């Protein structure tokens, strides 16, 4: 049993935006919004995720991989070639930044699983998840930090401005963006430890500390997840993967698991709903994320913002035309959208769910 781990604790700031109409927005906005909250981090981690950035490869899984040293690359590529058709390999474009003297080797692969490698009736998504789990836990020095289609995460050790310049974020265009600046309190800076944390199309940025981490982790392990990062964010990401992709809950129901309503509220509902929510809490008690958090999670069809059930971390939302903004601070929204149509503070546990139009 893996219990003798050191959990990663950090405070942070987060921001995100989405164009319902799939209008692709340049990276400059999200960078500006995040940089306004630079003081919520301590320069030990920042990152961005964007959807709709690889239209020419939209049918391929985009693996963003970091290598602690270049030689590991060949081991990894050997493994990939045996299991995937590789459409394209390229180093992720970066610019030299003074504040980032050393960086891991960063390469992206556009791939699709080889049909004959998917034994039995294993689903394509499960196959990709297994690859991510295997590489991250077994190939020392290689780390897949992004694995979805037509989306990507860019993250590392540095402050929001430096990381944006390093990854040339402003050159990408996407319809959904999330970003994060970090204040780790106990980990040495590791590039993989920054947010967003992703798995398949899921990307998570998270602010807070999940006090129920221990049981959430053990619950996920029962379903075969390997928690290698030891962060709350990883727990949140896998929990969503389990609830939504594997067990088929819809997003609103999954939110009712992560930030479950209080019994008092459930008891007061009309019978059918009461029965449904009671069953949800009885079944998924170990999946309740308890403790302070605000989370933005992006996926191929939209963006969701959610708070813990007594709102111990800030989250503000705003809309302007087809765009919805969510951030830790209202100022981070107003920095890029000075006159929103509507601004509000979502209530504790009430998710803000935005779906892309088809």
């Amino acid at each position: 049993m893996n219990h003798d781990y050191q959990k990663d604790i950090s405070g942070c700031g987060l921001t995100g935006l989405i164009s319902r109409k799939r209008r692709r927005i340049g990276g400059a906005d999200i960078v500006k919004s995040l940089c306004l909250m630079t003081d919520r981090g301590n320069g030990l981690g920042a990152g961005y995720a964007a959807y709709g950035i690889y239209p020419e490869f939209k049918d391929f899984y985009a693996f963003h991989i970091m290598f602690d040293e270049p030689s590991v690359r060949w081991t990894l590529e050997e493994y990939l070639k045996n299991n995937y058709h590789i459409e394209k390999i390229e180093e992720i474009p970066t610019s030299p930044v003074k504040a980032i003297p050393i960086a891991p080797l960063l390469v992206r692969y556009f791939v699709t699983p080889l049909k004959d490698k998917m034994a039995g009736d294993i689903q394509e998504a499960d196959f990709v998840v297994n690859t991510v789990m295997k590489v991250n836990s077994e190939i020392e020095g290689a780390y897949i930090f992004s694995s979805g289609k037509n989306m990507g995460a860019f993250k590392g050790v540095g402050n929001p401005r430096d990381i944006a310049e390093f990854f040339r974020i402003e050159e990408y265009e996407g319809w959904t963006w999330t970003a994060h600046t970090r204040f780790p309190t106990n980990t040495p800076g590791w590039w993989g430890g920054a947010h967003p944390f992703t798995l398949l199309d899921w990307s998570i940025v998270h602010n807070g500390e999940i006090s129920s981490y221990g049981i959430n982790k053990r619950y996920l392990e029962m379903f075969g997840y390997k928690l290698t990062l030891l962060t709350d964010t990883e727990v949140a990401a896998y929990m969503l993967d389990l609830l939504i992709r594997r067990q088929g809950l819809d997003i609103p129901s999954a939110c009712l698991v992560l930030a479950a309503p209080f019994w008092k509220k459930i008891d007061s509902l009309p019978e059918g709903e009461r029965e449904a929510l009671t069953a949800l809490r009885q079944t998924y008690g170990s999946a309740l994320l308890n403790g302070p958090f605000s989370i933005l999670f992006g996926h191929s069809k939209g963006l969701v913002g959610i708070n813990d059930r007594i709102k111990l971390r800030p989250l503000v939302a705003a809309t302007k035309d087809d765009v919805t903004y969510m951030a830790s601070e209202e100022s981070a929204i107003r920095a890029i959208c000075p006159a929103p149509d509507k601004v509000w503070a979502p209530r504790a546990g009430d998710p803000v769910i935005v779906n892309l139009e088809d």
Partner: protein
Amino acid sequence: MFKSLAPPEYLATIDREKCIRCKRCIQNCGWGVYSWGGDKVLINTSKCVKCLRCYHYCPEEAIEIVDNPTRFKQNAYWGYNHLRNIKRQAETGGIPLTGMGSDLPYTILFDSLLIDACQVTNPSIDPLREPMELRTYLGKKPSSVEFEKGRDGKLKLKTKMPPQLKLSLPIIFSPMSFGSISLNAQKVLAMAAKECGILMNTGEGGLHEDLFPYRDNIIVQVASGRFGVNPDYLNAGVAVEIKIGQGAKPGIGGHLPGEKIPLEVARARMIPVGTDAISPAPQHDIYSIEDLRQLIYAIKEATNYKPVSVKIAAVHNVAAIASGIVRAGADIVYLDGFRGGTGAAPSIIRDHLGIPIEHAIAAVDDRLRQEGIRNEASIIAAGGIRSSADAAKAIALGADAVAIATAALITMGCTTCGKCYTGNCSWGITTQRPELTARLDPEVYAERLINLIHAWEHELKEILGALGINAIESLRGNRERLRGVGLDTQILDILGVKPAGR
């Protein structure tokens, strides 16, 4: 008569200057220590068990009960208990009996575990201002649920949920039969269970009709003696428990002598007055796990699928056994650690068989998770829960709820004197003598037990608040919030707990 060579354990003394000869001590002592000598109270101190009933009821504080200073010579190897038992065995040729849980100084893991608290990076929560949820449901849970959208667009449940037992807090009362304890003591448990929204358990003594009004808060037990078992009985509570073993006497049956079977007990047990009530060591229709499965399903059929709990003593191989029980269809696995109490057990068995509950919870919870079946049954942990802190630690190790018995009896006056097997309990708890049971007023003592449960409830909420969580399910199995002090690597590994400082 031959004078026992085992010196009395306690000396009961009366300060003759203070004594007003009211004779209350004579009335109160169930063991016959005191008698009237015409002009003063006589004392037969060899009968004293230090239950302290006389001390509490003496109006003049004239009584003092002290540990007998005249002891065998101190010897670190040949302890007092060894010599005493050998001498008693030499005199009687019998097996010395005892009551309550083992009092030997084995390591107490609960006392080597400390609970976490929040500072800065996550806020603690004030239970006086914020909701703090202890509600617990016992029973099988599906691994996922399915919904359909109702016409009104609201969620509607598609999955059929297995039956659940609702508790307002994760504490229930352990089984104690009518016969081993008095009907009044059972009434105290039933009244408190009802008031607190929790459960009591009949033990294997059948169900007295006075308890019928409390059926929503009762688990009925089926054990090897099958006393009082019929379809009405099985359906008389909210769940049925099959008792395989008891922590204090794993592998051992029970024997309630005929003298303790007056009419009322006989009726509840459905046996003739004055016959010995013998519970065989095994259940004679359960010699294997497949037999257990058949009984579980027979009971489910007879009760229209009420939850079935299976109670076992924590023994060396408890994880594999519990896994088998879950796969056999049990909704609840009740683990009873070796510190668990008893009305009567051979002391050699009580003190030397089984394993502590802390190890058992950790091993069972781990095993059920490894097999991916932890959701299939709830775990109740019992056997020496002394405080809400023990309860919190047991839950953090992986239990869904804890069961308490000794703590509940202590609210009724019990001083853990350990002489329950004599049937003379001066507090009216573990006795059927009418003059003794009459002194246990159910209304009065239910109030005390309710106070205890409420006090523990408040304490549990304070603990959760300090941990920065507001629902008990976030503590359950959350071993990350426990640390071990002074435990070696192997025990930490078994418990799945880090040492303090990590």
